[in-house]
């Protein structure tokens, strides 16, 4: 190997690191501009969790438009600007193109033309909402099993509209007349309005408690209470100790009005005032907000995803050109992206205070990290470039899945009380997720084995033996992890509601993985299959695991209804079909495999029930 080539082993990872570092710079507000990014760090409670307004902005925008940014005249703008316009009732909130509507029938109802990106502004369809309401009323009457794609899009759009309105309504600055009759009338109206929006859905609570007895309140509620306090003070009513105006309401009101009128100085002054008050009276659980805000801007999962793509490309090149240099630079590039990946998972733990896996999103990123870690370990043991490729591809795929899962909103939601036991999340969930990881990893190696064997001549005797051992070893670990993880899940159930095993869909999915892995190992020991057979069965493990990971969640809704056009079910079926195709290929007679010339000569299978191999025999 030439010395000059070796430089790439260092150079590529260093470039990657530099790129990552450049992204870690927090966003700052320009001098003399409205300090919107600072506003983004203010606390708000939504769906039970204290988070920065920035997170609320990003999550809401993702729900509406599938993106964390939006465009104004072709220029990319941060989500917080859109949120500020929306909650301050600025005229711009009607013109931002943030509603993604892809269903043609629904577009027609709303009087919209197809457009690239399918994103529309409120003002474009605002006058057609009456018509939409009629459609919505019809669709809502339908039983879930009768709903088609259009119906589900109507319901989804209604949810988007409701989120959009709730953001605005909860931050409404109340206008109350001064005269007695007007005051009473306006208070009654606003009070009724508040009750109505509170009962219909969950509102963001932007005003923090001042003491332990108070709770977080939506801005509108706090503002109304303030008006009453003020009024009674004017009238000389005896004040209770806690009925002083809320220090947050004044600055908030001024910020919202200033944003609406575009008054930069007024906005920044009010913001500074509010920040000072927060610094002096920090509410509970707000210490991590600045970090979360940084994490939002950094977007480490996105960075890792990009790096995995490059690593996958490098690994493929390393095969084509059989270059140890490329293989080693891919390895170190993977180390960099793995580092970013781990950093991101750690950040989520710090922000939420929960162990890493609390929902599907968490499991996707965790399985990704597990696969990459395992791949790097195997690459270290067998430097053949195979650990690299499986690590890069699984890392990329799992983060891609995670990205699509994140389109549903906040990925760091609070746990249902029954699930709120960190011990179990840290033991059962982690172990069972690692079990998924190992099963997938074995499946990935098996795909590599079969595809290389069938389509290339690179599956030499040595490579085949090494791959066979890797697959076998990983399945063994998959069995251990999935068994222990599944049983721990049962113990959780026993400890929580006295039923170790209830045969519910999620438990059954996990049980099938355990049985499958056990079956593969026993089939191998029984001499029913050899290396190739284990590989074929391991690909089946991908199907079994995906079904348990995503399929059982689809049963409740999917099998009942329009399930098979529903996107998750669609991708799941596509994936299963692809795996079945690979299994089919793997069953082709060896004589037509391209690698046949170099392949291991197949020794005759031992008679069934021969004395079991000693465990030392892998």
């Amino acid at each position, binding site marked *: 190997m030439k010395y000059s080539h070796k430089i790439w082993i260092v150079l590529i990872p260093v470039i990657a690191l530099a790129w990552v570092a450049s992204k870690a710079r927090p966003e700052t507000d320009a001098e003399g501009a409205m300090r919107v990014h600072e506003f983004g760090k203010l606390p708000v409670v*939504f*769906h*039970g969790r204290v988070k920065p307004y920035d997170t609320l902005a990003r999550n809401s925008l993702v729900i509406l438009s599938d993106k964390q940014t939006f465009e104004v005249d072709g220029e990319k703008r941060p989500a917080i600007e859109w949120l500020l316009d929306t909650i301050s009732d600025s005229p711009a909130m009607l013109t931002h193109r943030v509603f993604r509507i892809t269903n043609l029938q629904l577009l027609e109802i709303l009087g919209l033309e197809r457009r690239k990106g399918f994103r529309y502004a409120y003002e474009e369809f605002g006058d057609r909402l009456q018509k939409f309401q009629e459609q919505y009323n019809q669709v809502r009457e339908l039983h879930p099993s009768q709903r088609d794609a259009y119906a589900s899009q109507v319901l989804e759009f209604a949810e988007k509209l409701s989120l959009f309105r709730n953001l605005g309504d909860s931050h409404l600055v109340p206008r109350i007349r001064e005269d007695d009759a007007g005051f009473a009338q306006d208070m009654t109206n606003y009070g009724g309005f508040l009750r109505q929006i509170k009962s219909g859905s*969950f509102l*963001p*609570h932007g005003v923090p408690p001042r003491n332990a007895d108070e*709770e977080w309140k*939506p801005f509108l509620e706090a503002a109304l209470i303030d008006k009453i306090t003020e009024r009674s003070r004017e009238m000389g009513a005896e004040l209770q100790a806690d009925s002083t105006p809320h220090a947050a309401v004044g600055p908030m009101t001024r910020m919202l009005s200033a944003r609406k009128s575009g008054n930069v100085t007024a906005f920044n002054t009010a913001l500074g005032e509010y920040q000072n008050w927060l610094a002096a009276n920090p509410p509970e659980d707000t210490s991590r907000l600045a970090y979360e805000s940084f994490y939002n801007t950094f977007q480490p999962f996105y960075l890792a995803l990009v790096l995995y793509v490059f690593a996958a490309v490098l690994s493929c090149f390393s095969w084509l050109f059989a270059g140890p240099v490329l293989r080693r630079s891919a390895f170190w590039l993977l180390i960099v992206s793995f580092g970013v990946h781990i950093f991101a998972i750690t950040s989520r733990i710090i922000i939420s205070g929960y162990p890493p896996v609390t929902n599907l999103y968490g499991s996707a990123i965790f399985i990704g990290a597990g696969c990459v870690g395992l791949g790097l370990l195997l690459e270290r043991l067998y430097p053949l470039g195979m650990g690299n490729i499986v690590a890069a591809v699984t890392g990329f795929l799992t983060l891609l899945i995670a990205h699509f899962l994140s389109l549903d909103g906040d990925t760091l939601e*609070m746990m*249902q*009380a*029954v699930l*709120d*036991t*960190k*011990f*179990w999340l840290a033991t059962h969930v982690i172990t069972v997720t690692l079990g998924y990881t190992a099963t997938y990893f074995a499946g990935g190696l098996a795909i590599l084995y079969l595809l290389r064997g069938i389509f290339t001549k690179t599956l030499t005797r040595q490579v085949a033996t090494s791959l066979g*051992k890797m697959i076998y*070893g990983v399945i*063994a*670990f998959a069995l251990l992890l999935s*068994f*222990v993880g599944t*049983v721990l899940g049962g*113990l959780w159930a*026993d*400890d*929580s*509601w*006295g*039923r*170790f*095993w*209830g*045969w*519910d*869909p999620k438990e*059954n*999915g996990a*049980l*099938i993985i355990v*049985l*499958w892995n056990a*079956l593969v190992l*026993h089939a191998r020991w*029984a001499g*029913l299959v050899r290396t190739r057979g284990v590989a074929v069965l391991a690909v089946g493990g991908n199907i079994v695991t995906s079904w348990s990971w995503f399929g059982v969640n689809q*049963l*409740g809704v999917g*099998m*009942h209804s*329009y399930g098979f056009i529903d996107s998750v079910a669609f991708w799941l079926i596509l994936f299963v079909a692809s795996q079945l195709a690979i299994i089919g290929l793997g069953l082709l007679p060896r004589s037509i495999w391209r690698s046949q010339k170099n392949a291991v000569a197949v020794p005759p299978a031992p008679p*069934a*029930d021969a*004395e*079991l191999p*000693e*465990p*030392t*025999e892998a």
Partner: protein
Amino acid sequence: MANQRPLLFTLLKPLASLRLTVAMMAISIFLVFAGTVAQVDKGIWTVVDEHFRCYFTWFHLRIFFPRSMSVPDIAFPYLGGYTIGIVLLANLLAAHAVRFKMRARGATLALGLIVLAGASVFTWLLIQGMFTKDVAATEGDASLRVLWRLIKGTGAAVALLAGCLIVFRKRAGIVLVHGGVILLLIAEFYTGYRATESQMRIPEGVTRTWTYDQRSMELAVIDPSDPATERVIAIPSSRLKPGKTVRHESLPCDIEVLDFMRNSTVVDASKLPEGVTNPATKGMGVDAMAIVRPQVSGTDPNQTSDRPSAYVRLRADDGSDLGTFMLTSIFLERQKVEIDGKQWELSLRPKRTYKPYSIELLDFVHDVYVGTDRPKDFSSYIRLRDPRRDIDREVRIWMNNPLRYDGETFYQSSYDGSKTTVLQVVRNDSWMIPYVSCMIVLVGLMTHFGFTLQGFLKRRAAS
């Protein structure tokens, strides 16, 4: 003796086959899969009874397809969970009898067997509840409590491993794994046959001495003449088969079952569509008619429980018709009926079991996350009284922190409004087995893979 051994071996050999193991595993995977997709239409407990906890079962072809597709109504027979479990158990035991040879000889073997026997006794004692407080609320963190159980399990596993290592040497891990799996299978059999689950619904300030089982209903015929103690004749719902007549000497009349609906709803009987006649002639059924509803599905995210209703015709001993009644679990009131000049009451209700102790709900606390309806914590402060043992103490039962008492465990399971708690009451004497077998299998697998890894590293170093 000399002749019997080979004969036994010839008989056991096919039973011990690894191919049989693989086949049974494949069969069980399909059973679990089919039993899961069947839950789209059927309640989880119906599926457990019909497919898992049985010897033979039938599956309909349509459960494997989206419900919107029209699939021919074909059913095929399949092995039930019990059969698969028994065959796997027999297969495992036979394999150990035939294939897993004891490697130790003489005194070493004797020592190994003694260690194994001791360890087995220790494991048995753990399962029986050694080191567990007899009368106690579970205190402390769930994590510590469970960790402590797992540590006990590890103790048993390590003791068993020691015995296995002496007797089976390098096969010790596998033997241990199989032992753990056998224990788990036995526990599931035991749970299927013997464990009971019931509920207690207690409003604040009320004392209860009975639990009810939402999954099995009973038709209670009640003699309320003694205000202090009611006399109740209860007929389990399994006896309420349409077309059958229930006769018993303690019953004041014969009960002819016209219809029994596993899940139902009630409609206004005065607004029935044309062609529908109300079968009831007496009681609340005159005004309200019960109609059948599909069973609550096991995969339904908003799972509730089935609400059965029944139509019964009462006949006096002389065969005269005393009226047709609609009985439903939807309404709690009892219906009155006069038989031979005596007042009786009828009620279709969840099966009750009376306990020798009583539980009073002192206070119920229920917190949600701010701005949501997600429960954050709910706790029942109860008072447990048992005159038999002179026990009178206050206990808090809350999420993941049950009370274990008198062989039963009380879990905070649900609530009804802000003043009524619902406790899940479970009796399962084998509850400790999974904790122990989990650790036995873990230790076994680690031992086995440890040996494998050791061999691998040795060969790697050699080459």
